[in-house]
């Protein structure tokens, strides 16, 4: 998986329930790389076709940090659906990410 700056990755269909996620990273640190990878993996698994991910590198766009109240990096922000939620860390703890994103697992467990 490659890290794309400010890139948008659109899944195929735009269903009624669409997820808009924004991942803030700072440069290509191991944590950043891990976070991007973990996020894609997780979304592919649980939100297939219903999500949009925007990765923002704060080293390139530092002025965006204040707007979304970014403190720690990496930070994942769930813009949609409301309410806004923030998950910090490299997203390696999938369970916490799911709790943070409030994704109810339809079938069984992780």
């Amino acid at each position, binding site marked *: 998986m490659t890290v794309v700056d400010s890139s948008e990755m659109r899944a195929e269909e735009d269903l009624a329930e669409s997820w808009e996620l924004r991942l803030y990273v700072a440069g290509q640190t191991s944590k950043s790389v891990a976070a991007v990878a973990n996020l894609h993996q997780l979304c592919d698994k649980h939100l297939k076709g219903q999500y949009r991910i925007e990765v923002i590198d704060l080293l390139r766009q530092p002025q965006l940090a204040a707007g979304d*109240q970014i*403190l720690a990096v990496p*930070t994942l922000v769930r813009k949609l659906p409301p309410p806004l939620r923030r998950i910090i860390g*490299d*997203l*390696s703890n999938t369970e916490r990410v799911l709790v943070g994103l409030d994704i109810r697992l339809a079938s069984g467990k992780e």
Partner: protein
Amino acid sequence: MAGTAQSLAQLEKCPTGIPGLDEITAGGLPRGRPTLICGDAGSGKTILAMQFLVHGIIEYNEPGVFIAFEENAQDLATNMASLGVDVHQLCAENGLAIDWVHVDAAEIEEAGEYDLEGLFIRIQCAIQQTGARRIVLDSIEALFSTLKNQAMLRSELQRLFRWLKDQQLTAVVTGERGDGRLTRHGLEEYVADCVICLDHEVVNQVSTRHVRVIKYRGSVHGANQYPFLIGKSGFSVFPITSVGLECPAPSEQISSGISPLDTMLRGGGFFRGSTILVSGGAGTGKTSMAAHFVRAACQRGERALYFAFEESQAQIIRNMRSISVDLAPWVERGLLQFHSARPSLCGLETHLAMILAAVVEFAPRVLVLDPLSDFLTVGSHGEVKGMLTRLIDFLKMKEITALFTSLTLAEHATEQSEAGISSLIDCWLLVRNLEQNGERNRALYLLKSRGMAHSTQVREFLLTDKGVDLVDVCVSAGNVMTGSARRDYEAGQVEEALRKKEEAARREAQMQRKRRDVEAQIEALRRQLEEEERELMQSMQKVVEIDERAKAERDAMTRSRQQDMVGRSA
């Protein structure tokens, strides 16, 4: 980091611009280093920090960044507006950047490893935007309650402070006081260069704010607890315990406003910059004397500051009109300012700070504290004396002439109750009630007046509808007479004089009569003498006439005899 090429140059200071704080820190906070300001909730940390930035921008042309973890920018702006600081304008002019770092544990889920690079980037962004030289982190401890990974947080904080130092930023970090430690989360471990502690002390239900520099690496600093005040113009500290006895001593004399009193004071009045105490019982005219003093200053065109602890401005003005001292015009012209407050409003130190703040702001030439004794309800004798010492030292440095009044309760204890402060006083006037013959009269004693040959006589102190007047008292048979006794005595004196005058006139008349009698007698005797002389003359005349007649007869006889002889011979 020690051991870098450092000359003997002293630690460079970054002035806070806060009155007094720069004095106790010998110039300000350590430049390029972080300073921790710790204190309880509501002890003024945020205001101090914000003022540090605002002064930096306005007075030292050093832009600043305020990273707020607790209040948002709008709240901060509102809070600072109450101190007359327009935060929005400072931001618009790019002198100040405020970044509110909103941290809410409920909104944040931690999933894996992270660091605080986001915060670093935001801080850097704000610094670049303004070109900041100063930064405030208020209060970064909020992160401890938000982030679960404390080990990461600590290492990141360490990195943050090192980074701020590398950036040569003078940083102020606030932290709330913890149990038995300076801050709840041990911020002092990271910020070790300078630690300033603010606290709040409540004694007898009266609260006093103190500031203390606990630690200052590489610099001397005042170690005491200094009172401070958060007033209209913000934070101000009064390090007056450091004031030495190096005040000037002008020999100019200024009128007390009561000309007979000036006469007693070598004809000129009080020395400028001296401290005058007027003490006396209730209703002895202390406030009236103060009013005269203040009016005289205003008439000279000097500013006067009047602290009233018992009466309001309106009350004093009304009451003083009854003795023809109208202070209202001077208030209107801005030469006279009243500050009325109950002593129990705040602690002694706060009172002192308030008085000093008012003095600094108004810059008066004379000052009145009426009455001083009310402070004893807030503090002990020793505390009051300590406070007054500092106040008097401060006023002397500024050559402000101060008049204090003091209420003494029992007549006999008058001199004892003031003994505590009498040594601080240059000129001490005592108004005493004298009870005699069923009436009460006031007598003024000039107990001391340093540096001048003054009158030692007791004067009767009169409050008339034309103002205060002093009258020489009558001393008779070892008794001082005042009031009606004096008037009786004076009347008696007049009568006596009149009587003596009449007596003299009578005696003179008598003498004249006598002289007239004697002269008449002399006249009579002279007449008698003249008479006798005339009679003598007459009788002498007669003798002559008789003589002549006898001679004539003799001649005639001789002639006839010769004829006889001729006839015979012829």
